[in-house]
């Protein structure tokens, strides 16, 4: 029966419509079931190797798509390798917890983008043998010399191998501020080349004045507890000596001595400071009920004078995209102790890995070398999608980052950078700390409880769980 017949009949029955829908669905399903197989066959017949790279949507996906276009245009014919990008849907959270399982299954791609360090499941994936060691590529490509030291040394797996390479960097947390709010409150913002208040008192005074001028204080997304952990991280850098943080960052590994503990008064002082700040109104009213994006919105719509977030927030896909209506600049969290200079905290966990389940390891290595080449990293800088990790990129290419992003990037070298605690640390510690930070700021536990619980978890992790 044709559609005309159906419509022609006076009582078009729902049952008929359903039948039609079912038939259409069936036909579509049949075509989809045969489609990929036929394509794969054609590919095989041509004697080509196809490398599939799995990339998070949003920024990583487009970065790889640009690489794929360039590679397939100029190198595919010569090498017989075609690059294909697989951009799954789903949220970042789903990807983080579920991709490791995909990587261990028959549906694994040849290569992937996945977080270095403990906040994700890099360590578990490495020890389960899912990654191909990249030590040879580090040598042949000279990555040791062109990537930031911390990116090269910070994420060596427990067995001494390096299974991933960092292709872009972010730094966190900065304070973004509204220029109009600072003007109204009569506050002189610190200059770019000295981007922080020189004492906590100065900082607290500025917060007070902003409140008096009718603005809410630091907007921060307390629902995403990693935002709170970032503040903890920045205070650790500002208030405790580097060897202290370094040991705590690494002592979950059995091979590293447990020189310091989480019950150390210095660690507890950091958590106490967060509580003090909360009680003094440093964070905006109701911050524990906002997500990262709501907090950003609270700032962008003009209610809050300050916004605490990483470098990504200045990007095109976030605040940078609203440049027309939003006049904002950045600074760092203040200096807390006289003898410790504030630094940027670098996160260098945005990494690329080759999976052992892939069938063409050599071809994948060629693709990865290309992806990390000066040419592609420069193109990435120009596109402004992400901040490339290579240090030898011409400065003018970095202008792609946008005004605020470029300004911060220029200061990175001058102000200096450090590595935070919560990313390189073991998954269990990092994740537990998120929950503890949320409890601490909700007032249901105190700094001492944070220390005790982290220390208990540390001992468990060291015991080999």
């Amino acid at each position, binding site marked *: 029966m044709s559609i005309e017949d159906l419509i022609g009949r006076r009582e078009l029955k729902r049952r008929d419509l359903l039948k039609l829908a079912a038939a259409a669905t069936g036909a579509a*399903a049949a075509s989809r079931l045969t489609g990929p197989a036929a394509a794969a066959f054609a590919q095989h017949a041509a004697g080509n190797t196809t490398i599939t790279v799995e990339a998070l949507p949003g920024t990583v996906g487009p970065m790889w798509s640009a690489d794929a276009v360039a590679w397939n245009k100029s190198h595919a014919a010569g090498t017989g390798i075609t690059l294909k990008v697989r951009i799954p*849907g789903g949220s970042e959270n789903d990807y983080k917890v579920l991709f490791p399982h995909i990587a261990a*299954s028959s549906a694994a791609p040849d290569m992937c983008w996945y977080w270095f360090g403990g906040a994700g499941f890099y360590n578990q994936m490495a020890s389960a043998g899912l990654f191909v060691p990249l030590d040879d590529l580090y040598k042949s490509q000279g990555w040791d010399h062109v990537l930031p030291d911390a990116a090269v040394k910070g994420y060596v797996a427990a067995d001494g191998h390096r299974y991933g390479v960092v292709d872009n960097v972010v730094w966190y947390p900065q304070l973004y501020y509204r220029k109009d709010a600072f003007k109204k409150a009569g506050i002189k913002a610190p200059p770019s080349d000295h981007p922080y208040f020189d004492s906590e008192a100065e900082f607290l005074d500025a917060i007070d004045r902003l409140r008096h001028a009718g603005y809410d204080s630091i907007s921060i997304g307390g629902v995403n507890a990693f935002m709170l952990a970032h503040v903890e991280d920045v205070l650790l850098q500002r208030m405790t000596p580097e060897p202290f943080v370094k040991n705590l960052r690494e002592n979950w590994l059995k091979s590293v001595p447990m020189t310091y503990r989480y019950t150390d008064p210095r660690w507890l002082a950091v958590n106490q400071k967060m509580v003090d700040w909360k009680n003094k109104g440093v964070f905006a009213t109701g911050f524990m009920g906002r997500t990262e994006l709501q907090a950003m919105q609270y700032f962008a*719509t003009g209610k809050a004078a300050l916004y605490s977030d990483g470098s990504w927030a200045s990007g*095109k896909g976030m605040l940078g*995209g609203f440049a027309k209506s939003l006049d904002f600049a950045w600074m760092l969290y203040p200096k807390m102790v006289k003898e410790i200079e504030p630094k940027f905290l670098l996160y260098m966990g945005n990494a690329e890995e080759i999976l052992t389940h892939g069938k063409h390891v050599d071809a994948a290595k060629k693709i990865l070398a290309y992806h990390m080449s000066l040419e592609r990293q420069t193109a990435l800088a120009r596109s402004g999608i992400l901040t490339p990790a290579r240090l030898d990129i011409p400065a003018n290419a970095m202008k792609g980052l946008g005004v605020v992003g470029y300004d911060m990037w220029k200061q990175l070298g001058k102000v200096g950078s450090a590595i935070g605690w919560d990313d390189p640390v073991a998954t269990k510690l990092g994740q537990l700390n998120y929950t503890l930070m949320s409890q601490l700021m909700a007032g249901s536990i105190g700094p001492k409880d944070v220390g005790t619980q982290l220390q208990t978890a540390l001992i468990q992790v060291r015991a080999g769980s």
Partner: protein
Amino acid sequence: MSLAHFKTIGVRIAIYVPLIAWAALVLMPLLFLYNNSLKTSEQVFLSPWSLPTELQWTNFAQLFDGGGDATSFATYLENSFIVTIASLVAVGVIASMAAYALARFPFPGARFVQVLFILALAMPITALLIPIYSLMNGLQLLSSYVGIVAVYTGLWMPFSILLLRAYYDSMPRELEDAARVDGCSDIGVFIRIVLPISKGGLASVTIVNAVGIWSELLFAFILLSDPNMQTINVGLLAFKTQYQVQWNLLFAAMALSVTPLLLLYALFQRQITKGMTLGAFR
């Protein structure tokens, strides 16, 4: 029981004010959703409650365009339709048969089976995720419609059976008995009497299942790791991801995802209520 019986205006107010208030509360998100789906990203972010200055139909064009290696929403929609319809048919057929058996035949083991379904329902979905994933990996059913449809059929089965059984239990049996007296077999009774009478119940179960299956995220994400196989609600999350949010596309995609369900509901809910207004009585 028509309103003519409610003599006082007070009663009317007591009925209509809450009804309208509830409807307003419920309608608001849909307006919010469609409204924002036609704005620019900046407008959605900075003034989420305002009306669009200029309707951005390009948002939808962009979704269907895909662009680069992003999957077109035409593909996502098609996948969602295939997976949802196939699962609904499988659940509907298998569950109505099982519920009929449970509701009408006191066979040995019936109580045990009922208990089994209640226990199965108690299982938290997230705990099933990894065991099912390794099972489907072993069966070579990853990234296939057959695999995900089978999983959804299993997961939605206990709920559908328990609810359908309640409907069958509440239905009078006289008609079935009469048919049996006329020499109709059990299968005949099921097909010719039980199914038609219980279509309201079946329709309500189907609608509720459709919503759940259409919007399911975790299994769809992990079992269908090939983006060309993924469903629309998995796809739309790609606009709210690390370091980037495309507000306009996120809302347009959500509008696109909700609309078919709305239409499906509009189509099916008539099956629930009696077709006509019943004269003097109503």
